[in-house]
């Protein structure tokens, strides 16, 4: 099973590609709404991409109150 750091790295890479943002501009503790220039609906879209990538199902509430990549990685890691 990948570590949380692996998961985090994969999320950052996937987000960078999907939203066309340079990978180096994304940091684990950065606010992904701001870094990716997205609203809460587009964040749900990101969640869908992550579900497909990691082959898990994440309820919407897992994203409630989450704004940084690290916490998101922890939520995903818990379901791997």
């Amino acid at each position, binding site marked *: 099973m990948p570590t949380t750091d692996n998961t985090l790295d994969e999320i950052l890479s996937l987000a960078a590609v999907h939203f066309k943002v340079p990978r180096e501009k994304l940091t684990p503790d950065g606010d992904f709404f701001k870094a990716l220039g997205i609203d809460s609906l587009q964040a*749900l879209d990101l969640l869908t991409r992550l579900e497909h990538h990691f082959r898990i199902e994440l309820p919407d509430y897992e994203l409630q109150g989450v704004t940084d990549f690290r916490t998101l990685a922890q939520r995903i890691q818990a379901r791997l």
Partner: protein
Amino acid sequence: MLDLRQYSSLGAALRDALERWPNETCLIEADRDREKVRLTYSDFREMAGPLCRALEDAEFVPGDRAAIIMTNQSKWLISAYSIFFCGGVLVPLDYKLTAAEHLQLLAHSKARFLVVEYYLWRAITQSPEFAKLTTEIVLVTEAPVGADLRGAYRWEEFRRKGEPKLVAREREDTACIVYSSGTGGRPKGCVLTHDNYLEQCRALTEWYPFWPGVRYLSILPTNHAIDFMVGFIGPFVCGACVVHLRTLRPEFVRDAFVRYRITYVSLVPMVLKNLERGLRAKFDELPRGKRFVLDRLIAINKLLTRRRPHVGFSRRLLPQVHKAFGGELRALIVGGAFTDPATMQFFYDLGVPVACGYGLTEACTAVTLNDLKPFRADTVGKPLPGSEVRILNPAGDGIGEVAVRSRAVMSHYLDDADLTVKTIVEGWLHTGDLGRFDGVGHLQLFGRKKNMIVTEGGKNIYPEDVEMVFDGLPVKEYCIFAANYIWPQKSLGEEMLVLVVRLEQGQQFSDALATEISARNLKLADYKRVGGHLVWEKDFPRTASMKIKRGELGEEIGRGVRRESVVEI
């Protein structure tokens, strides 16, 4: 629909609705592409009866307050129905608030009962403030087997046998306490009566009727004034069906339109914009020839629907577009925040009418609404039947504060007589919004007199509610304003909060201070964040009790610096 004039309470009207259409579907709940619940009015009655009986046994008495903190799902409506049936007062809380905010509003509302989803209850029990919870009976839905519920009951097991007895309420009795905002210093709990809701429902369904067979897609949170009315009370008293989705992922929302052949849906501007983006992207992918034909068909539709919508005709002219919406959509209802006229026009030109309105929690749901005779993207429509709207102290251009008088205007703010007296003056609700009427009775809005913003997601954010996160910021003093309050724009949109800081003598605005501001800002929910900061060179004017004179300071700043001086955070 039921003749609501005959009813004195929501409980009585809803009870009769369940008996009137026993075999009609009233509720569908889907999670992604899996349908989880499908209830007829008769099924709904059977589900709610044992809960009503259990509430009776728990000594639920008329006027008892019961809060609900849940995402949109069948148990929300079953619980709300049961609370009304037992003569209770419903306190619908926004599930997106933090646990600390939930606890604060539960205390402020003095709710004796709480119905809450498990994941939200878990967050509340983990809050450092949990010990302060005063709610006596908590019902938790969907709790996993073996979960420690910290003294709460499982909703699914909170049932008793027997026939419950409807508790009569009068029209002037309180039906709901709805928080329009204010989890900071001063919660604003709007006390709305049964009369408010019954009259508002009558007015809305006069223009936009529901009937058995109509399917309303409930996307806005049901605690929101719009969805509570058009995603619960309205459809139920007309025998229509509400469709709940447990996920709001755009792909599943799009799928639901088709799967359930949706008739109406209410949206906030952000979601409407998202739908527009998706459609435009699809149009852009079309080969040049097909795109040319589509553009011509849209132009024809636009021409032929100039005076009023012809939904049937539009469906035949643009079948692929309408098929994407399920083929039976009659209108998109939009409200809660400023909506870009170009977006509304885009949908109308495709033959999908957009009913844009204006309302506020203090006036129950809606004050004005577009009657589509003809469609107007540049206004928020005309006053609803029974609503009087006037412009207070209009300036030379006719713009002044919008005031409303109707039976839908709230009774008062909970435990805040001062604010009530300032807000409802001689029966007129002073909205704090600026507007004027055009020549044909349509209301146009031009910004806000009050210091607040409304996000694209329909959330009211008051500076006072977010200031506490900056407590202890290493500056001499600070204050937060809505940018449009300092620099009135006479238009809506481009709303943001601005943090104004006054530095200590000799202090420079350092990178460390900027980092500190950003870090504190991140502690706020994303939709509450401050958009920029501004350094102000003078001491803030204060009252004798050292409170900041916000109005005076805002005016000083507005005169002293331009909006362009705000530095983005």
